[in-house]
């Protein structure tokens, strides 16, 4: 060994300390950088020399700058993150749903229903009073409007989910792009044994973000790039990213598809699945339930209403439902009636009265399950003379049945055992077939005298109104086992359970994710105290190495001077 060996050792030591200090600085600088893994300079003893006195150390060598990271924790994190994302999304939509129902409170559907039946009872007590009728009308309209609003709000959530899905698709695409380009850079830097620490950190951050959105599996390739597949299709193939796009389904909702072949994505977790599940499964089940409530109210109120008498006969009456095929049996779906399946063999009665209120004629119209609109038109007659005198039946351009009495006559149509009046919407109370379109019939809205409170035709008779009020306690739903209230209360119970489950799952998942993140932090996180200590350590070792170099230099100096002095 030459006498300069000491200088080499000193130089290596200086370089090692300097680099270690720089890495400490890098750690401190990135202490708050998302996803940053602390780095460490790996030092090894340099290759020893063979000397006459044995193997002699030659100082320190820098092996590499390593990144402290446990890969399996990242995989766990991504797995739990995807579930968190899914439950977060579910919880978000269910809590909006809960908000729309606004139960329990005094401004809710439950309350509105009670008020509605109460106004029928009031009407049954004083059927002669105009105010009983107008109060009922107002309450009935409020009930209908609030059901419409509830429907629109809940259905609107499904379209909100679409917007979320669209923005998640965009995010997935941009993440996939960025991961692909990071793959490219990592491949570029990692020639030989190099590890692109910081780029890998960045990629891990993106992978975690991707896991929030979709469920995927990733496989690292020998060149450091990743192949990421979603539902068996490669989203990122090394340095290429596949584009996710969307199309609209028959209901007008967004479906994520692969740009390359238009095949739908198979989703198992993440926000994307959460939003789509909420939109296609959870929310629709509540829409179905409020639709069931609305259609039960429409059917049952109308069924009873069409039995009774208003205080004034109709001079003209347009059915609230339309018939698409006048030759088809009313009781068949071809008729186009919403409640066609309610029609059974039976009859209803048309009573004609003259201007002084005397009964001119009473006709019982028989209905069978094969009676068509055309049959009905010919029974009643298409002019004032044929069929029932002074009354004519026709259809308008939309397919409504229109009954018109001759001037000076008015008619009553009621006492229906066939449900035909209810299905057609003649002498009924509500129109529509579900929560979206329930509304008070226009003829009732125009003239509250048409509200059929009476079951005999006499003005002081409120028996039909009382019968309608009685609907509230009838078990009409769930195979005749539940009242409308029971069904509604169950719906809210279900919503509460669903929401609470989502909330608990979300919170549980959050705890899990936090736990894993802590584990990662434990290994990869920067501790400023630790770095400060390292800083001192490397500073001191640098100083020591410098002193050592000074010592070697002084030694050589001395030697040179001695030689020079000779």
């Amino acid at each position, binding site marked *: 060994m030459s006498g300069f060996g000491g200088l080499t050792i000193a130089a290596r030591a200086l370089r090692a300390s300097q680099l270690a200090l720089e890495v400490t600085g890098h750690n401190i600088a990135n202490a*708050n950088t998302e996803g940053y893994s602390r780095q460490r300079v790996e030092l090894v003893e340099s290759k020893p020399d063979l000397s006459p006195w044995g193997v002699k150390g030659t100082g320190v060598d820098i092996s590499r700058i390593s990144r402290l990271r446990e890969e399996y924790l990242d995989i766990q994190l991504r797995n739990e993150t995807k579930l968190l994302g899914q439950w977060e999304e579910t919880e978000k939509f269910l809590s909006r749903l*809960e908000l729309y129902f606004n139960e*329990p409170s005094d401004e809710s559907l439950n309350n509105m229903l009670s008020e509605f039946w109460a106004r029928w009872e009031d009407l049954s007590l004083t059927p002669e009073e105009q105010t009983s009728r107008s109060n009922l009308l107002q309450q009935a309209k409020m009930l209908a409007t609030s059901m419409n609003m509830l429907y629109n709000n809940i259905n609107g959530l499904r379209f909100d989910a679409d917007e979320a899905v669209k923005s998640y698709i965009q995010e997935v695409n941009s993440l996939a792009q960025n991961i692909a380009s990071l793959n490219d850079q990592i491949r570029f830097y990692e020639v030989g044994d190099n590890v692109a620490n910081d780029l890998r950190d960045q990629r891990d951050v993106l992978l975690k973000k991707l896991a929030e959105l979709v469920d995927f599996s990733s496989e690292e390739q020998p060149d450091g790039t990743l192949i990421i597949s979603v539902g068996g299709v490669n989203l990122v193939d090394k340095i290429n990213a596949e584009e996710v796009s969307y199309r609209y389904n028959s209901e007008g909702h967004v479906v994520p598809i692969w740009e390359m072949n238009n095949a739908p994505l198979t989703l198992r977790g993440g926000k994307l699945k959460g939003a789509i599940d909420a939109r296609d499964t959870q929310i629709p089940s509540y829409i179905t339930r409020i639709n069931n409530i609305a259609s039960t109210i429409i059917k049952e109120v109308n069924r009873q209403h069409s039995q009774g008498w208003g205080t004034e006969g109709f001079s003209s009456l347009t059915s609230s439902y339309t018939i698409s095929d006048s030759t088809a049996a009313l009781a068949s779906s071809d008729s186009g009636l919403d409640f066609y399946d309610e029609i059974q063999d039976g009859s209803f009665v048309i009573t004609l009265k003259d201007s002084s209120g005397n009964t001119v004629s009473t006709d019982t119209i028989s209905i069978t399950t094969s009676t068509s609109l055309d049959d009905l038109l010919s029974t009643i007659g298409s002019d004032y003379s044929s069929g029932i005198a002074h009354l004519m039946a026709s259809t308008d351009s939309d397919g409504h049945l229109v009954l018109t009495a001759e001037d000076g006559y008015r008619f009553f149509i009621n006492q229906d055992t066939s449900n035909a009046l209810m299905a057609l919407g003649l002498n009924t109370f509500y129109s529509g077939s579900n929560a979206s379109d329930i509304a008070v019939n226009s003829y009732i809205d125009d003239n509250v005298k048409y509200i059929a409170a009476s079951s005999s035709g006499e003005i002081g008779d409120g028996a039909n109104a009382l019968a309608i009020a009685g609907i509230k306690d009838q078990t009409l739903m769930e195979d005749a086992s539940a009242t409308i209230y029971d069904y509604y*209360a169950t719906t*809210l119970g279900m*919503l509460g359970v669903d929401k609470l489950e989502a909330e608990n799952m979300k919170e549980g998942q959050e705890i899990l994710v*936090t736990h894993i993140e802590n584990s990662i932090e434990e290994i990869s*996180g920067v501790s400023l105290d630790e770095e400060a200590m390292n800083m001192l350590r490397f500073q001191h070792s640098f100083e020591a190495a410098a002193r050592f170099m000074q010592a070697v230099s002084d030694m050589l100096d001395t030697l040179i001077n001695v030689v020079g002095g000779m």
Partner: protein
Amino acid sequence: MRISTNMIYNKAYRNLTSAFDRFVRIQEKLATGKRINRPSDAPADIPQDLLYRKELKDMDQYQSNIEYANSWLSVADTALSNVTQLLTNAKAIALEQGNDSADAQTRQSAALQIDSIISQIVQLGNTKHGNRYIFAGYKTRTRPFSLETAGGQQVVRYNGDEGQMSVEISNGVQIVLNQIGKDVFSAPETVINGSDVNSTDSPITSSTLLSTFNGGSGINNGTITITNGGQTANIAVTNSDTVGDLIDAINSAGINVEAEINSSGNGINIKSTVSGTTLRVSNNQTAQDLGIVGEAQSSDIFGILLRLKQGLENNDRDQILSAAGDMEDAIDKALQAWVEVGTKMKRLDMTKSKIGNEFVNITNLLSQIEDADFADLTVKLTKEQNVYQSLLKSISAIIQPSLLDFLG
């Protein structure tokens, strides 16, 4: 365990937010006074909560129904109590005028008193609640009783119907609110019940020919004479007429009578449509063949009163005494109606107090489910407040010093 600097901050942040979240939840319960502010606060309790709320609303309505029924019945109660009183007075007058000491003059002035009683009872029969006639059945806008003259004789006509008004007074329980004026004042009907006509067409209908009567040998063609009070009608009948023809002819005779096929379908009944008359079908072969020979005296409240008045006017002691005897029936009738009203009112009172109790019970149950426990919440709030403050303190203690503070 290695602790990174971020862990300290993250943990501190997480602890702070979760403590604050708990704080806010308690605060919400305190602010609304409710333990349940949304279904997910207590999913198991929500259905019951909603059903209790519905029951309370129902009870509100029952209370208001009962209130209405009570005010209606108290009007009926007053009216019927007055009727009873007036009838008792009428009976006293009748007994007094039935004495030997009474004479034509006293009876004449008593007749005036009875006349006034009749018109008062007619008025009471026309009692209104609000603007509804309470004794008119469903025809609440039609004066149910009118005092008319037919054939020079006073009669009372009932213009109402027999509609029964039901009121729901508790879940599924309905009571009939009204007393039908006809049942109280105009019953029993003045009717001649026809005997079996022995028709070969059995049961007889409106299209049955009269020739089928009497085992197919028919009737004696001729004229029947029907007298109702001061009105008389002669109706010609032949074998070629149907039962319907006969009924139509009688109904349209204009003497306030109505004919109908009896309930057994083997004869024809004839009845008066007004109170206060004597209905008679004169005896002849044709009437006998039709099975409608007979006489019926009006014996409802008005019939008896009118008969009494007639007796007094005519100074007819026998008629006065007979009417005085019948008067007991009239009083019974009025009393019975009055008692019915009283019974209903009592029942309403009982139902009302029962509902009142249930209302309190259910309000309590609802409150147990729904209301916040203020004492408990206040304690919890204080606790969370302490937790929050100690968190802040401990965080400031941990975060502030760092090794860097001590490096020169």
